[in-house]
Every structure is written in C-alpha cells, then in structure tokens.
C-alpha cells in the first residue's frame, strides 16, 4: 500500500527541543560539575551570606517557639472567630510548596518528561524541607505540644484512641506518609550518586560517611534492574499520594459547613495550587543556585522554560477554580455562600483577595510570551509573585471565611501579632538552613539520571 514518508530534516525547538545537557559535556564532566560543588574546599561567598542569614532566622524561630510554648497560643493573633490564623496559613503554604518535588520526580517520570532529571534532586530536597516546615506549624498550634503524640494511634494512659473521622487526623496520616515516602524516594535517588562521591573521595572521613550512606552500591545491572522497578513503583505510588495529601489538607476546610470552605472543588483546586506554588519555589531556588554553583549546563533555559509553562497551566487551573467557586456561590442561591464570596473580594480583606488574584492568575499570563520565559530576572520576579500570591490564597481562605461567619455578632477583624510574623520568617530560616546544607554536602543534581538522558547513554544495538 501507499507508504508515505514523514517530512525529513525539520528543526523546531518546541517539537525537537535542544539537548538537556548544554555545553561540551560528556559523562565524566557531568560528574565533575556536580561533585565539584561539594568537593570544593570552600563554598562561594554568597553561600556564607545566605547561610548566616538563614541560621539567624532559625534562631528567631527557636526563640518564638520557646516563647510560645512557655506562654501559650495567646501570643498569636488567633482568637475567636479566627481561631485558625497564620499558623494554619503557613502550614498550608509550606505543604503546598512541598508538592513540586514529588510531582517532578514521580508524575513527570510517569509522563516520560526527561527534562525533570536536571531539577528533580533539587526539588525533592526542597519538598522534604518544606514538609518539615509545614509539619512544625500544626504541631506548635495544638497548644500543649508535649502531648502531640496523642494524635497518633498509640495507646495512652487514658485508654483513648484518636478520632479517625476527623479530617485533622487524616492530615496527620497524609503528611507523615508523604514525608516518609518523599524521604525514601529522595534517598533512593541519592544512593548511586553518593556512591559516585564515595568513589571520588580523597579523605577518610568523606569515604566513611558517603560510603556508609551509599550502602555498598556497585552499579550492578542486576541491582539497577530492581532499582528502576522500585523507582517506577514508588513513582506510581507517589502520584496518587501527591493528589491525596493536598486533598486531605483541603478536607480540613471543605468538610466544614462554613461558606467559602465547604465547596466540592477544593481538593483538585488545592492540588493544582500546590503544584503551582511548588514550581514557583523551584524556580525561586534554582535560578540563583544554578548561577551560584555553576550548574547552567545542567539546569538549562529549557528546564526553566518548561517550568514556566507548568506554572502557567496550573495558574489557569487555580483561576478556573476561583471562577467556579464564584459562579456556584451565586448559582446556589444560598445567601450565606454568596455573601462569603462578595466579602472575600470586597470585604475588609479585599486587598488580600486582589493580591491573590493578581499574583496567581494575572502575573503568570506574561509567560505566554517566549521572550518572557527566557528572561531569567523576569521569571525570578514572577516566581516570587506566585509564592506571595499563594501565601495570600491561603490567608484569604482561612481568614476571610472565619472572620465573618454566620453570626454577625461574632464578626471580628483578625490581625497578626509580631510573634506570628517572626514565626513565619523563622520558618524560612529553617527552610533555607536545611537547603543550604543540602547544597553544600549533597549532589544537587541527580548525576546518574542526567547521564541516563544524555545521547551517550543509549546503546545502538540495531546498527550492526
């Protein structure tokens, strides 16, 4: 029959994108580039600067937590009717950021998106640190944190069990499962790279510690076979897990009867928002880091371009959810529901709402233009906007719905205290301290995975 040829010699950067690894790189130089960062006798000056500031903020966080525990949650602005103030806003904010890592390593893996290899180590680390920050907030929010273990199904002296019908308990399970699985996933990806560092180690100390955590990896193909299968399984498990975690976080709100919280689109909407904010944070971190540590060949403009597109797409999904909520609030004919949304946009916190809309829906629209996606400074600024907007999204959800509920006599304008503000800043200190340590002591790019998508890695078995 008529056999047709597809058009030959086409060159188009969208359909046939540039190579993932730029510059004159071979397998060995990739190892050199990545390991060079952690083998250098001193990190760049900017590392010291950021690390010092981060440790300082970490100290602030410590002080705030001690003050909180010794005094009580009254040091925060939380009070009726806004009993969930900044701590829960910060929790949702951080746990949202913690979604990009597993999304990049798991979902993009299942979608065969090779470009993820350049950034997945990085964003998985970010995920774990963000989840650490996130988990801290509900823990210190419970008041008497020394009995926080009551949330786990451990027999206690009162012979009571936690209430599994409560969404807050689902949260405990979802976030801790997510943290454990992300950690396993991250560590599993690290093992072959730790082996690389071990084999290059010059000092005994390095050889011992990296060797210890490399688990005796020899690059055996029989190992690789099971390793890849386990990686695929973990990816397949992590994908619904990512969906579930932020869905469960959304259940904290959506199972209530509060207008503005109780809406069925909240689970997918929260998930899209989490991916959105997570990718923004990856950009915020990777744009300076690739420069600081000389990783421009491995985290290329194409990676950034793709992330911009993901941000734009998820930004649209979030925008879709905003508009559906508004439409349904009117369509429902329920006056409380309608009021909640009018109050969001035009009530006392109107500024929060419009910051949210302009940062989350409007600002990413600039990524329609390829020029904008290639302008790193602009991309960096937009990524900051998105982070800001997503923090405000949670603020708007938590505070505007609570501060004016069904009973006008209990309406109350919420204001944070200085402790609220410093605790949030302190959580950034925790995050960046961990992140800077990671940048210094662990391979920032998944060496073996990047090698795997380089053209040199493919055996040519057919051209005999």
């Amino acid at each position, binding site marked *: 029959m008529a056999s047709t040829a597809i058009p030959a010699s086409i060159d188009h950067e969208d359909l046939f994108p540039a190579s993932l690894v730029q510059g004159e790189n071979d397998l060995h130089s990739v190892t050199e580039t990545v390991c060079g960062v952690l083998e250098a006798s001193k990190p760049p000056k900017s590392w010291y600067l950021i690390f010092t500031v981060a440790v300082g903020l970490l100290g602030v966080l410590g002080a705030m937590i001690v003050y909180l525990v010794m005094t009580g949650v009254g040091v925060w602005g939380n009070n009726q009717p806004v009993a969930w103030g900044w701590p829960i806003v910060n929790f949702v904010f951080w746990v949202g950021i913690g979604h990009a890592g597993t999304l990049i390593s798991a979902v993009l893996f299942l979608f065969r998106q090779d470009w993820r290899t350049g950034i997945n180590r990085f964003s998985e680390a970010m995920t774990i640190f963000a989840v650490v920050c996130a988990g801290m907030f509900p823990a210190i929010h419970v008041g008497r944190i020394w009995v926080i273990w009551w949330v786990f199904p451990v027999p206690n002296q009162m012979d009571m069990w936690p209430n599994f019908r409560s969404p807050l308990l689902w949260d405990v399970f979802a976030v801790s499962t997510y943290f454990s699985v992300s950690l396993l996933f991250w560590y599993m990806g690290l093992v072959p790279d730790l082996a690389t560092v071990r084999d290059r180690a010059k000092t005994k100390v390095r050889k011992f510690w990296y060797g210890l955590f490399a688990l005796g990896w020899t690059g055996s193909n029989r190992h690789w076979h099971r390793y890849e299968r386990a990686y*695929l399984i973990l990816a397949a498990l992590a994908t619904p897990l990512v969906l579930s975690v932020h869905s469960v976080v959304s259940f904290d709100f959506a199972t209530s009867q509060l207008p503005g919280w109780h809406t069925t689109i909240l689970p997918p909407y929260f998930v899209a928002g989490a991916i959105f904010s997570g990718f923004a944070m990856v950009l915020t971190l990777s744009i300076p880091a690739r420069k600081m540590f000389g990783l421009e060949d491995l985290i290329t403009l194409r990676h950034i371009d793709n992330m911009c597109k993901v941000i734009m797409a998820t930004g649209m999904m979030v925008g879709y959810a905003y508009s559906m909520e508004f439409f349904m609030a009117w369509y429902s004919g329920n006056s409380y529901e309608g009021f909640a949304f009018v109050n969001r946009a035009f009530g006392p916190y109107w500024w929060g709402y419009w910051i949210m809309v302009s940062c989350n829906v409007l600002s990413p629209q600039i990524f329609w233009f390829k020029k904008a996606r290639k302008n790193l400074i602009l991309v960096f600024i937009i990524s900051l906007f998105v982070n800001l907007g997503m923090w405000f999204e949670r603020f708007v959800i938590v505070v505007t719905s609570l501060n004016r509920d069904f009973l006008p006599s209990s309406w109350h304008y919420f204001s944070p205290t200085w402790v609220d503000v410093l605790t949030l800043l302190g959580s950034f200190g925790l995050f960046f301290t961990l992140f800077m340590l990671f940048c210094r002591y662990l391979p920032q790019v998944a060496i073996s995975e990047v090698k795997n998508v380089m053209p040199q890695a493919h055996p040519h078995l057919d051209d005999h």
Partner: protein
Amino acid sequence: MSSHPIQLEGDNQAGDLSPKVARFGLGLAVVGLGLGAALGFMSNDHDAYSHFWFAYLVAFCFVFTIVLGATFFTIVQHLVNAHWSVSVRRLSELTMANIPLFAIFALPLLVPAFSDDVEVWKWASMGHGHEAAADHGATDAAGDQAHAGPAEAHDLATQLEHEEHEHFVAAKEPYLNRTFFIIRLIAYFLLWMWMARFFFKKSVDQDTAEGIAPTLGAKKVSAVSVILFAFALSFFSFDVLMSLDETWFSTIFGVYIFAGAFLSCVCWMVLMSKFLQAKGKMTKVINDEHYHDLGKWMFAFTFFWGYIAFSQFMLIWYANIPEETHFYAARLTDAWTGWTWCLLIFHFIIPFAGLLSRHVKRNTNVLKYWAIYMLVLHWVDIYWIAMPNYKRGEAGAGNPFGLMEIALAVGMIGVLIYGIGKKSAKQALLPVRDPLLGKCLGFKNI
C-alpha cells in the same frame, strides 16, 4: 535534532471499510433510536414522554461526552507535543469530527426544554410567573403562623421547605431560563464545532504538507483552546445535567464529567484501534507500547474519576447540608441504592484492580474487554446522574430502567459509528507526515 524520513508499512487507509462501517452505524442508529422512540411514544401514558426524553438525554450525553473527550484528547496532544499518541491521534480526531452531527441530535432536546408538558428540566416550566412570589414569602408566612399550635407546625415545615425551594429557583432565574439556556447551548456548540473543524483540518493538511506549518498552527491555538474547552465543558455539564436538579450544586461537577469523558474517549480509541487491526489496518503502526499507554490512561482516569467522585461524595456527605445532601440522599435510598453501590464497585474498585497490572495493559485482547466494560459503566454513570430526577419527589418515582434506555444508547452509538465511517473515507487513518511520528513508532515503555 531532526527526524529521519520513515517509510510506513502496512495498510493505513480505511478504503472500502468506510462505507461498510457507515452503513452498519446507520442501521444501528435507525433501529436503536427508532425502537426507543416507538417505546416512548406508542404509549398514551403522559409520563412516558418525560421518561423518553430523560432516556434520550442520557443516551445523548453518554455518547457526546465520548466525542468531547476526544476533542480534549486531540487538543491536549498538540499542547504538550506528545509523541506517543501520534499513531492513534487520528482515531480521536475522527471521533471529534462528529460534533456537528451531534449538534443535530441535540436539537430534539429543545422539545423538553420548551414544552410545559414534558418535565425534564423542571426550572424551565417553573420559572414562569413565579419570580415575584418567592422572595419574601417565607418571613410573612411564618409571621401568620406564629400563633399556631404544634399541630400546625408540621405543615409549616413542609411549607417552608416548599418556599425555600421556590426561593432557590427564583434566585437562579437570570441563569436558568429558556432563552439564556438556548443561547448558551448554541455558544458551546459553535465553539466546539470550530475547534473540531480547525484541529481536524490542520491534522489532515499536515498529511500533504511539505513543512510542518499545519502542526505548528494547531499547536499555537491549542493552549487557548484548552482553556475555552474547560469552561465550555463545565458550563455545558452544569446546564444539561446538573440543572436537572434545579436546587443542587457542586463546584467539582465539571471536573467529574470531564473525568468520565476522557476515560470513555480513551476506551473508545482502544476499541477503534482493535477493530481496525482486526480488519488488517494499522497493524504495523499501533503496537503494544501504544496500547500500554492507552491502558495507562484508562487506569489513571479510572483512578481520577474515583478521586473526583469520592471528593464530591465525601464532602457533601460529611457536611450534610440539606441543599446539597439531597442529591446523594436520593441516590442512596430505595431503587437507587444498588446503582450507587454498582458505580463504586464496578466503576472504580474492580477496574482499578483489573487494570493495575502492566500485563493487562499490554494484552490487547483483554484490554479490549475492559474498554467495552468501562464504556458501559460510563453509561451507568450518566444514567445515575440524570435519571433519579425523573419524577423526583413524586409518588411512583423509581428506577425506570428498561429496553428503551438500551435501545437509545445503542442507537446513539450507531450515530457515532456512522459519523466516523463517513469521516474516515477521505484521509489516512493516522497523521502520516506528522513530525513526531518517527518518535512515536520507536519508543518503548520501561
């Protein structure tokens, strides 16, 4: 990087299969729809008309969501430069191209929308003359009743419920009225017909083009199209299905319908592909890897559907607010309990377990039966959404499932088959000069 020219092997033209398929589809449509109409209209029972229109709506939405799923599938492949799907993309394009045909089959739905005798969309007949009454009636009525004893209070409760209902309907009147309804439907169909035409044409143009201009053209428009499509599908599902229960609302409903549409579209593509290969077409261009990927989508969207369905159910069940919870209350009592459990077990748990293994996804003969199975369940899903509204709240309400439903659904599938048969005659069964075809034929799942 540039692609190497590739010689395609095998028979990739529909040839004289097209008219055969079209004839078969036409026969199925005439028999199915004819039998359904006969069952509906032969009876002198007034209720039977409403029953017929409900069943017609279910059959229409069942097949039309497949078509819409195919539209989305096609557009999104362009958006993300997908290479795995190139060899099966024409199948979804052929399905998508039937939107104008289904616009014609949507016309009969104007009868229930505009007739006061047929109760399908109750708001359509309720909206007339009730606008003013509902607004402040509740307060005054309660004032009159304030001195009533407890015996009268029960009547008061019923009356309040009734007035509350009228209030909700009145509040939606600016949206749910006949004029705006028809305007919106026309807008959706115009948009979709344009999309179908545009993307089909670009794909066919690529078959003969020298460069890759048509593919790039399709890609350029794909992002905006996806956004427009998302809103159009959501509001279409609100208008046609959600508003059957005029007081109920759920923000996730558009996503729920989308999940079912995409899932059924993928199943449909598996069936088309298996049929063509059984007839000796496309044998060299669709291989296990493509079925494996289609199977993964089936599995993923089975899970996604379950996720969305659970989110919607659990949140409404948990909060238990009267104006929402009646949707599930109706479906978890009497005749409908079984169907609801059936959805949970057969639309989610069983296919989830069944499609989990990679061996199933790569065994195309097994996968084929899963595709048929999921399509049937998709029909059950649509039926379960729409049909409990038939005679809702009246005496004698129940599950009227019978021959008419089956006949109409089969007839509507016949329409789709007829349309695809007609469309498939003029071009190859896959985009033969697509720039990504080379990658598509060479990839392997790990």
